[in-house]
């Protein structure tokens, strides 16, 4: 159906290598996420909400 990749005249190596580089990179990031602790995630999510500003506004909704 789609013929996006044609006539590479032996230069497929660039494409295949590039995709492998990305796959390895993506898997490394994904593994880091799997190992990440929930407390740290919640801590990081709350960084923009400093106490001084929350006093003036409504309470932070974390639902």
């Amino acid at each position, binding site marked *: 159906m789609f013929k996006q990749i044609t006539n590479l005249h032996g*230069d497929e190596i660039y494409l295949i290598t590039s995709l492998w580089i990305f796959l390895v990179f993506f898997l490394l990031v994904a593994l880091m996420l799997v190992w990440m602790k929930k407390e740290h995630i919640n801590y990081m999510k709350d960084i*923009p909400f400093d106490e001084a500003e929350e006093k003036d506004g409504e309470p932070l909704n974390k*639902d």
Partner: protein
Amino acid sequence: MHLEQFNYDNRIVRDFAVATIIWGLVGMSIGLLVACQLIWPEMNFLTQYSTFGRVRPVHTNAVIFAFVGNGIFMGVYYSLQRVLKARMFSDVLSKIHFWGWQFIIVASAITLPLGFTTSHEYAEMEWPIDIAITLIWVVFGINMFGTIIKRRERHMYVAVWFYIATFVTVAVLHIVNSMQLPVSMWKSFYVYAGVQDALVQWWYGHNAVAFFLTTPYLGMMYYFLPKMANRPVYSYKLSILHFWSLIFIYIWAGPHHLLYTSLPSWVQSLGVVFSIMLIAPSWGGMINGLLTLRGAWDKVRTEPMLKFMVVALTSYGMATFEGPMLSLKQVNAIAHFTDWIVAHVHVGALGWNGFMTFAILYYLIPRVYKTTLHSKKLANVHFWIGTLGILFYAIPMYWAAVVQGLMWKEFTPEGVLKYPNFLATTLEIIPMHMMRAVGGALYLTGAIIMTYNLVKTIKKGNLLANEPAEAPALLPLKSVERDQHRRLERKPILFMVLALIAILIGGIVEMIPTFTVSSNIPTIAAVKPYTALELQGRDLYIREGCVNCHSQTVRPFRSETSRYGEYSKAGEFVYDRPFLWGSKRTGPDLHRVGGKYPHKWHFDHLLDPTITSPGSIMPAYPWLIDQTLDNSTLQAKMRAMRSLGVPYSSNEIDRALIDLQKQATGITKDLASNQVEIRSDREIVAMIAYLQRLGTDIKAVVPEDAAAKTDQ
């Protein structure tokens, strides 16, 4: 725990906010002017400083670097201080950054209409301004990293990662894309030529969109959207995944701007594949933003700034879906060079960048002035007028693109082009261009209403220049953090280095082979350097911004070879510094225009395009007839070209003025025989010489021979 007292610098945020508003109005007004010029050519005002070709780069640069640029710095200076719990590193650097950036904008606004341009899209400013941009960007970087280093928050919030990636990538893009050899104060030549120059330009152009118009705005979204909705970001894990994937993938996608050109096919394929992959991380950001509003949609009804954010995110989703679709060769074959691309970038610019900037202004101004917004009702009016403006802009442009793209490709049953006259396709879409101008006017009206609303807000409040804050000092870490990304989030320099590596990989894989493997750019023996007069004419073509409307690359389609002639080969551009392939065909492609018409036709066409093409929307260029060609730097230009690899002999350089005069005299004699009396030292003679040379080198060779040599 000891709490440290400090102040946030709101004055610099206010300064950038005011600059954002002013330059936004200027950039949008110029955009409306150029939109009108494409309907009524008399709005070029018959002066050389206000033609479409010279003003269009003023519009694009004003919107990108003046409006969005100041918007980025406004958002970054506000959010960075708060997520790091620290005042900016240096007030002096903040001021240098602010005034330096405004100076660059003013210098660009003066030099571009004067015709001082490199013609690289979105990087048209000449080398002195490029150096100023580099210096001010370094000032911004020192100020940002200084703030990060003296922070009171151990871990860097996701917004800061995007700011770091923006800083480091824009620096790389700007430096690589600005490698020029100066000839004089306002003239330089790129060190790259032809296909390689095209690759560098669109690697830069595409990633300027990525790392100037996208990543800083994603960073701002991750700070301002949770603050506006009073809810934390939906998924922090998704933000990590989409950040790293986005910055890694984006850099590869540039070649999708050059599909079906003479760029090596493997580079085009890489551009296509990574463009398709780009949907995932882009939509990761959009989904993360929209889901942050989960449970807070009631606020969207009442808060205009959240309405702006929702449309901004939706526009981002649309533009980042459309971009990969445009990278599919089948779609690109029809849409490229049409108004589709204009619509695509404006959905991003008006919807994503414009609306988020407006939302942030509505959020920031009341806070730094310790007051409330003057009128929510007016903000709502702004929202609806602006949204209507985007629709009135984009829909007619898509319509125009499909109409014109199909007209270009339509053949009669007899097998000839149904619309052989390009102008017929241009005139067909004038009504759509009128609707586009209405859309632009609506959008600008909304921005004017916002300005009034914010000025009234400022007047009723008082600037809180130094906002008091407190936070515990950062103590040395006592326990080892096992989590890799958690460790990374507290190491800004390592973070920057890893981001740099992620963005360098794509550029290196695409560029190094294109530059070093000679088979990627086959040379053609018949292709010779430009003569002295043609070189001068080429610089006039660049000065007048002809590339803004005319491409110079014939794609290998029957519809294009029937209309223009033989498709373009990589080897034909080896002496082109800069390449002039263009990105939009408001007028026809000119790569094979050489020898197509007599000199007299070009003279008449430049004097008044309607003489040769009744109904043409091209501006007239009468000053080319009045002005004397400036040859004072001609030999310096040829010497510069020779140092970059163009095989001009010493004899050719020494005799340049004599040869120029000889060729010019030949043209004026031909014109005289057609009842046109003109002196040979006029600019129009050089322009005609250049146009008559275009694409003729391989015409001199039997086509089969040329093809055989190209295949070698």
